[in-house]
């Protein structure tokens, strides 16, 4: 068995083992549903209440993707601006760090104040949360382009735009796609936070209502949905990353002597 396959088996075994241990511990110590439901109960709840849960899951996914799309647009634009020169990078960096270190939960009430409760604050929260990893990565990718690569282009009398489109942007792609993986999970977090605080739809809202009526299995069913959606989005963007920027993930065995 090759090492990679063995790692995958080990990962799968760990995940299954985790749920089995959870189930067994709940049974062994007689833990009540209202404290910690067993995984089997969660799955049963999920199956039974699917028609009720489904619209909420779709709403959360929709909000996340819209926020994420806006985040990409804003992130690439700001990142290109900040990364356009060493000076811009150095000047803008402290402000960026300042903004990104604000706990984003704190901005949800402001969005609610401006736009009222509902989908818009959730979309904006998702966007705010996912925009910073993208800005920082795009800016870093552009700002760290090797000067020699630019010299090659400048000796050919290439315009700023030629340099950006032929060297800067392609070189930044690995950074960009690496940030998308992080950003999409962040967008997800943003959506759920906003939904718990100020919305009447979405998984976050469903979990709030379920917990206030002590429907603990439903709360955990919501959690499970969130985990599955989060992992799925991460996998999708990892896959795109490897496909688009394979040159940056090259393997040594291709190299010739």
């Amino acid at each position, binding site marked *: 068995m090759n090492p990679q396959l063995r790692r995958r088996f080990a990962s799968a075994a760990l995940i299954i083992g985790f749920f089995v241990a959870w189930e067994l511990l709940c049974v062994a110590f007689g833990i009540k549903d209202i404290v910690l439901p067993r995984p089997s109960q969660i799955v049963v709840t999920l199956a039974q209440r699917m028609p009720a849960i489904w619209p909420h899951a779709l709403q959360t996914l929709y909000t996340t993707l819209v926020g994420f799309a806006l985040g990409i647009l804003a992130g690439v634009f700001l990142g290109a601006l900040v990364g356009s020169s060493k000076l811009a990078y150095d000047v803008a960096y402290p402000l960026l760090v300042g903004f990104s270190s604000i706990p984003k939960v704190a901005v949800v009430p402001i969005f609610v104040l401006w736009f009222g409760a509902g989908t818009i604050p959730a979309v904006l929260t998702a966007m705010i949360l996912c925009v910073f990893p993208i800005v920082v990565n795009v800016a870093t990718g552009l700002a760290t382009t090797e000067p*020699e690569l630019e*010299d090659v282009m400048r000796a*050919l009398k*290439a315009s700023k735009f030629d340099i950006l489109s032929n060297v800067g942007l392609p*070189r930044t792609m690995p950074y960009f796609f690496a940030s998308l993986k992080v950003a999409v999970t962040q967008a997800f977090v943003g959506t759920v936070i906003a939904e718990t605080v100020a919305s009447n739809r979405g998984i976050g809202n469903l979990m709030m209502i379920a917990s206030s009526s002590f429907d603990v299995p439903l709360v955990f069913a919501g959690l499970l949905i969130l985990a599955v959606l989060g992992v799925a989005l991460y996998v999708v963007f990892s896959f795109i990353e490897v496909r688009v*920027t394979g040159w940056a993930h090259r393997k040594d065995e*291709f*190299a010739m*002597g």
Partner: protein
Amino acid sequence: MLAPASGSRAHADAFVELQKVTHTYGRGDKEVRALESTDLRIEKGDFIALVGPSGCGKSTILKLVTGLINASSGVVFVAGREVTAEPVRVGMAFQNPTLLPWLTLRDNVMLPLKIVAPFRQEYRAKRRSEFRDRVDALLAQVGLAGFADKYPWQLSGGMMQRASLCRALVHEPQLLMLDEPFGALDQFTREELWGIMQELWMTRRPTVLLVTHDLKEAAYLANRICVMQARPGRIIQESVVGFARPRTIALSYDPEFVTLTQRLRELIMRPAKETVQ
């Protein structure tokens, strides 16, 4: 357009000319004079080598002629006009191959055709026909036939450097700038590439300015060698290399060749000895 500095005009027969050019990096306390007042004339189609110790301003001259940096004083003429006044097609190769890792070898070599006039206007129309054939022929000439679809990281250092030479030449540059292009290679690869470089020069006749640490390389490739001195950087001596072409590696063991490289070596080492007390 820049007006030429008063009184200075380019010589009619010189393709590249430096007149009283100085260059200083940094400001105030950190000021470093990289190049002391320097005159240099290169005729069209000539092959000049700049040799000297580290920090003697060799690469500075290269960058001045390319227009990558501006002279602190003095004038640099290229093709009878002040540098940057008129676009002259320049090819450049560095010690690192600086190939773009996301492009195949063919696309890497084709890059100048995508950027430089008049090729860029025809790039879309000819990239899959005429330009492609031209690139493949050039790759074949340096011994890279069949590697056009490989990515740079799939090749050895010597192969990447060959491709880098192709990229410097593909757009038929009038001026070819070589900044220690063979410096990072092993001796056998280096000597093989000298032969290839000589052949490329003889068939295409660009004006070449080669910066190198390797005296054998300079004597093998160049028509004229300018010896430079460090701190402040300036040209202290020029030697004409008269050996007939095509030159061979066997020539480098010829007594006359050895005498030449030894004399160059003494010229470069002497000032260092004098300043060490």
